[in-house]
């Protein structure tokens, strides 16, 4: 406890960083990107079940490093389920299980030698409804992923500062780091959750409809942030908003009834899709 309060003291009485902080995301705050550190995710023969319900059928997909891949499809097609199999959140649901391989670079996250909490630190997740921890301040929220994993140390405040700068929140919250995280607006809360996720320094970020609960302006800010984030992380975003997929994603996956129908560059999916079903979905003939 005393370490926390002394950290906070130093926070509020310290010199202001001399780079001007605007509202735009500043990924440079995280430092230079080391060469050749892109991370690929490869899904092989993935099946997922809810009890007896075979929700995901034999999915094979590659998510390229440092790109944004969008997953679109009608409700119930399995897009959220598939994404939750990537960071092994699916198995937390009672009676749910997954089979197959998910390779982060070369390592299968389902391998028995792997520690599931380490998987989730490497593959972060942002949810549909912003979920900052209600009993924690803004500072504590961003630090929570580190602190509660047992990380201690001097540079906690530096890491929090960097994460908040990276998501473009620093200017808005620098004078109230001790106020509750839930006191922020919806859009700010979601960016806070993103800051919390990147503070843990993941390699991949999964986003499950991150903007559905936000107003249009907040949505655009988050999309802008996603565009910046891809320089450092591989991003997978589930969205039911096709215009959003069209705006942010390099490539798009169309799923239907638990299977992948088409995976192509976004431009192709929205000007000249190969599959008839994709054509019908994106033009709104069904949904």
């Amino acid at each position: 406890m005393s370490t926390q309060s002394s950290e906070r003291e130093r926070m509020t009485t310290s010199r202001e960083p001399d780079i001007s902080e605007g509202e735009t995301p500043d990924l440079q705050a995280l430092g230079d990107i080391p060469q050749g550190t892109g991370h690929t995710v490869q899904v092989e023969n993935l099946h997922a079940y809810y009890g007896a319900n075979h929700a995901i059928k034999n999915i094979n997909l590659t998510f390229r490093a440092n790109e944004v891949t969008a997953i679109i499809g009608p409700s119930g097609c399995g897009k959220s389920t598939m994404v939750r199999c990537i960071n092994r959140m699916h198995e937390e649901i009672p009676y749910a299980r997954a089979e197959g391989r998910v390779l982060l670079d070369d390592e299968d996250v389902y391998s028995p030698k792997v520690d599931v909490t380490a998987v989730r630190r490497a593959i972060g997740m942002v949810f549909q409804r912003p979920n900052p921890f209600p009993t924690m301040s803004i500072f504590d929220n961003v630090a929570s992923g580190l602190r509660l994993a047992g990380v201690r140390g001097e540079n906690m405040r530096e890491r929090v500062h960097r994460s908040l700068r990276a998501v473009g929140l620093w200017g808005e919250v620098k004078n109230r780091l001790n106020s509750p995280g839930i006191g922020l607006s919806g859009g700010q809360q979601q960016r806070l959750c993103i800051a919390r996720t990147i503070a843990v320094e993941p390699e991949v970020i999964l986003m499950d409809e991150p903007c559905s609960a936000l107003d249009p302006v907040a949505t655009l800010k988050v999309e802008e942030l996603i565009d910046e984030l891809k320089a450092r992380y591989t991003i997978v975003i589930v969205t039911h908003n096709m215009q959003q997929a069209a705006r942010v994603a390099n490539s798009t996956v169309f799923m239907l009834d638990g299977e992948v129908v088409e995976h192509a560059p976004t431009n192709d999916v929205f000007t000249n899709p190969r599959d008839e079903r994709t054509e019908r979905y994106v033009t709104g003939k069904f949904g």
Partner: protein
Amino acid sequence: MQETRHQFREDLKELERQVLGGLDLVIGQIDRAMEAVSYQDVELAAIVVADDDRIDGRYLEVHQGILSLLARQSPVATDLRIVAALLHCIRCIERMGDQCVNIAKLVPLSGHDAPKDKEILDSIERMGQLARSQVSQARDALQGRNVELAQDLVRQDQEINRLNRGIFKRAVEIGDDVELREWGMFMILVARCLERIGDNTVDIAEQVVFVCTGLFREMADASTPPETARST
């Protein structure tokens, strides 16, 4: 049960109807312009010039309709290609209308009861028929999304091109005849207009192929020299 995006589909179909109607207007203008040329009918020529307002009006309507559809409905995939194609086609229609006006304006200038050269006149009439049939075929190709019909237009266009070159040579030949040569020059201009109309139908054909296949390929038209024309 109503299909989803019913209003959008209706709006898109209506735009297409207007474009097809524009092609019909062009056919009418070609017929009248050719008749005015053949019979030196100055009054008919004046009507052609006045009627071009309808084509210009159609252009504005379709243009506005497309902007509105893009803003409100965010069309994608095939719908987007159709919208882009319709915009291109209505411009071609407007240009074809202008060519008809150019032809009509040449009628009074070429003089009343001027002596005419039968060979040139026949070629002009033939060109007019071809231009008319090409516009009609382009209309059918667009309405039916017919790729073969569209590609066939290139073949027909080569015929118009041949006739155009022929008229030019003949006009040079009769150039020594003082009474005929002015008329001959005007006929060269008429032939040029008709040849431009042919090029526009090839443009429309390219758009039809684009809508159907998602690929855009330049087709060899009269303005491309045969040696450098890409094979289709």
